[in-house]
């Protein structure tokens, strides 16, 4: 490994060291505040490191990793999400009895796993990244172990994720058996020389798709999502909804690019099928849901279905659309779960829709942010969500993927119903008077409000000036495509 390669890996090394630093701080019996601030600074350091290394990209660290523009975009998004989630975590956990300190170790390890996924170009690194992410998540989901659903949710996730990992490994083994390589480029080269798609490869792809669909919570592997979203602490739910999905989608895009997945007829059929049933199933499940955490779980199933429509064309426009969509989706969910975090009380999370009745009149700022976030999820113009959905539609229409596109449009309309239902609750008259609680940590509450405002500006900004974001993604992707060709 030469120094430039080391330099390219710098952000990931800083990310890994964040967990170690936190462990040392806990050993030194530091307070929650110190740990929180240190964690925040470490994440900022990761961002700085990424800025610092942007000129040495793209760089491959053979055979496992490659740090290129696409990885930079995805990792940047992941680190941004973790920055915000870390901020939300403080007031959430400080209010509760349990010791919150080890939580940060797990969060940073999970982040590292997701980040490793974005730079993987080899089955081994994919598997390591995925397990790093999953194992952190098992503990994170069950973190508030005295809660009713927490342990149950953790157990369910553990069993199902273990099963999906088994399929992933089996799929990898089959592909390795067929091509003799675990390296993405090596597989692609081997496939080219073979000239036809052999049964082992096809089966392997199918089994790997199972694991990917499970992680992205796509129908029919989605059943865990609602239970886990509901049982996990709100920041962890937020983490699952954003970070873990970004990481898995990144590796999916990279693998598909390497082996030209979309040129295989069967793969396109499977992905279209999964996308369509996810869009339909997610939206239909959400219609009558009264629990906002479960509702957002179903909504994210549908959104990942939309995302797959952008993935289907497999061209540059599709990848750009997908990245923008993922960006819009992530900041929207960050904002929405941020509000849930802020409203959650000591005993229970604010997950019942009743808790939101008349929110706008009690707290206009929070009401407005949640409204904008929901409008963005519904894809209403002037929000990031609209531009994202428009880009996805455009990518689909240009490839003439009529069926997924039509389903996307119809299910978006159905989705509008339950988003508007929440919005109308926010603005409803309320008789219940909520006692004004004295906040214990004015500084962190202010910080959380600040983060929410940043998200609001991003949501509207990306809706009004989307070209800035799109151009940014394109710039990074240009670096990404250079690496594909070498």
């Amino acid at each position: 490994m030469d120094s430039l390669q080391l330099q390219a890996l710098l952000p990931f090394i800083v990310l890994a060291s964040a967990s170690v630093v936190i462990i040392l701080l806990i050993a030194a019996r530091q307070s929650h505040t110190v740990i929180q601030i240190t964690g925040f600074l470490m994440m900022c350091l990761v961002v700085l490191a990424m800025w610092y290394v942007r000129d040495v990209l793209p760089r491959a660290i053979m055979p496992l990793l490659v740090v290129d523009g696409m990885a930079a975009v995805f990792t940047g998004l992941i680190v941004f999400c973790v920055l915000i989630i870390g901020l939300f975590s403080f007031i959430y956990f400080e209010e509760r009895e349990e010791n919150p300190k080890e939580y940060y170790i797990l969060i940073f390890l999970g982040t590292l796993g997701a980040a490793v996924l974005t730079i993987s170009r080899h089955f081994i690194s994919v598997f390591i990244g995925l397990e790093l992410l999953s194992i952190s998540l098992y503990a994170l989901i069950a973190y508030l172990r005295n809660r009713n659903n927490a342990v149950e949710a953790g157990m369910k996730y553990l069993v199902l994720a273990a099963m999906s990992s088994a399929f992933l490994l089996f799929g990898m083994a089959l592909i390795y058996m067929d091509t003799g390589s675990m390296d993405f480029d090596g597989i692609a080269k081997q496939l080219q020389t073979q000239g036809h798609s052999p049964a082992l490869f096809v089966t392997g792809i199918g089994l790997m798709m199972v694991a990917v669909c499970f992680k992205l919570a796509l129908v029919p592997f989605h059943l865990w999502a609602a239970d886990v979203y509901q049982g996990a602490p709100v920041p962890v739910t937020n983490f699952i909804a954003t970070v873990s999905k970004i990481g898995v989608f990144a590796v999916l895009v990279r693998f598909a690019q390497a082996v030209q997945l979309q040129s295989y007829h069967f793969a396109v059929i499977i992905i279209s099928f999964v996308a369509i049933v996810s869009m339909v199933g997610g939206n239909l499940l959400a219609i009558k849901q009264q629990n906002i955490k479960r509702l957002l779980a179903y909504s994210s199933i549908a959104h990942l279905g939309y995302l797959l429509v952008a993935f289907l064309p497999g061209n540059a426009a599709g990848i750009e659309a997908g990245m923008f969509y993922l960006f819009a989706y992530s900041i929207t969910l960050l904002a929405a779960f941020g509000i849930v975090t802020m409203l959650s009380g000591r005993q229970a999370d604010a997950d019942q829709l009743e808790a939101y009745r008349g929110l706008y009149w009690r707290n206009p700022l929070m009401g407005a942010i949640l409204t904008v976030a929901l409008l963005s999820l519904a894809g209403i113009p002037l929000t990031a969500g609209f531009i994202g959905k428009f880009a996805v539609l455009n990518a689909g229409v240009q490839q003439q993927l009529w069926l997924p596109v039509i389903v996307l449009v119809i299910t978006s309309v159905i989705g509008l119903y339950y988003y508007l239902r929440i919005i109308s609750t926010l603005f409803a008259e309320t008789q219940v008077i909520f006692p004004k609680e004295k906040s214990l940590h004015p500084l962190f509450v202010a910080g959380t409000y600040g983060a929410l405002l940043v998200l609001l500006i991003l949501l509207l900004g990306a809706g009004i000036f989307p070209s800035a974001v799109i151009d940014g993604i394109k710039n990074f992707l240009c670096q990404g495509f250079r690496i594909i060709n070498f």
Partner: protein
Amino acid sequence: MTNLIAYIPALPLAGFLLLFFTGRRMSKSMIAFVGAGSVCIAALLTIVIGITFLQSGSSANTQTLWQWMRVGNFSCDISLRLDALSLVFVFIISFVGALIHIYSIAFMRQDEDYARFFASMNLFVFSMLVLVLADNLVLLYLGWEGVGLCSYLLIGFWYKVPANCAAANKAFFITRIGDTAMAIGLFMLFKTLGTLNIADIQQQAATIPNVTTIALLLLMGGMGKSAQVPLQTWLPDAMAGPSPVSALIHAATMVTAGVYLVARMNVLFLLSPAAMNVVAVVGAITLFVAGCSALVQTDIKRILAYSTISQVGYMFLALGCGAWSAAIFHFFTHAFFKALLFLAAGVVIESLHHEHNIFKMGGLKNKMPLLYYTFLAGASALAALPFISAGFYSKDAILWYSWSAGNGNVMLWAVALTGAFITALYSARLVIVVFWGDMKTPIAQQPGKLMTMPLVTLAILSIIAGFVQWPHNLLHVTLFADLVEKVLPATVLKQGIPPELLLQLIAAVVTLGGAYTGYLLYYKSPHIIEQWKTAEPNLNLREFFVKGWRFDELYQTLFVKPFLFITRSNKADVFDKIHQWLVTACSRLNGWLSLSQNGSLRWYIGSMLVGIIFILALQFFL
């Protein structure tokens, strides 16, 4: 200087946002300062930018702010374009707008919704500026819908009176017909050319196969906004709004948006002689129809409303004849004198305890001399009295071109001439009945300085604004035409027309004759009218004109009643059944799918296995 163009619309927008969010907590002086100040600064900026632009001699300045979206080969820029045509409009909007805002400070002082008023007015000025500065038709359409919204909000400003809300709704619905046609036109343009950028359209216009259809659809949009027959019925009712609103939106600026659109899209219209003829005929019919109605109205604001429709009709006539610069010139002078008349009418109404009926006014000449002389200046400009009024210079040009321009003919000229007679007649009637004779209602209050200052300014402009462009045979001053013809095509003259001087003399005689007739009928010997009114057919005719040629009743029978009939016979709402079915289906499916979310882990594993088997099976069968 080009990078300052964006500040002209940005200032009123900032004013709107400030008032919208914090207006409730502001004091009235603060609201007035923000509301009027933002537009005044925009007006000053316009003057500075305008002078620089004229000195630079460039044909157009474009400022691209940002690209809103770019998808495939479609891109939508937020970019502004200042050329001679938009400069004229921007000048009128910001300058007249500023005067009207200053006037409103005093006029609306007693109103409890002071902030809402100024917020809506600022939003209107912003939208209107976007409309005329837009460099592509998407942005233009945004401004177009924005002014429609503000018009709706301000007509229904005093929403507690149901009639005002009805008027607002009517304006909204009827302009919507035009807007829809325009949107279809835009879609067709985009489909044929693949762009909505105005400069690109002008370049590629010759390649459009169905140019007549597109031009007519755009014209429909313009007719809705500019209240041209048959979409004119909303404007008289729109007088339900406060007087400054009528002055700004329904006289000076918004109702001329259609004129702007046709002038801006002149390339399309020039390619289609049929569309040009339609424009001219619509204008001619409108100016006559509305003029007749203005003759017999008794509500001071409705008289002015009908006269506005009629004057905009003149502009359309000029556009249709190919006298582009004359149309814009008439817009220019009309904005001053019609805004003046509405503002003065507002003062009259305010001073006489909200009395609208002109026959209950009278004798104001001695009590309110300043108001009288300013109103007189406005009315003489409306009547186009030769030489001493701005209206003369613009209307004389239209009269002359309606025969002599490439697309004009003697019929159009005759209608325009009749219209000129009617205009002079009702202008004289208005001045005489309101200001002369005996006083019938005591005066409650005199207008303050804030209200008289805009009146005096506009009165001076109503007299002198015409001097920038003289008839060719009298004096060779063509400043205005030189300016706008950088953008608009020059007027082509036909051969074999009677000498211009002769036509001018006829026009002058007809105008003076109209004014004298008014003097005769309403001052010297009013018994003629009394006598005329005794005959039954005459009364019927009068009623016909008062009701605006019974267009409302026609539409009521043609559209509203059948529609109500259909809704009544379809009370069970058959079409709702379709939606009901959809709702039931979704709800049922939701129920079934929810069964799968039963929380049992083995069931979850089972479903995963089914999924895997399905995927594997799919692979092997394909």
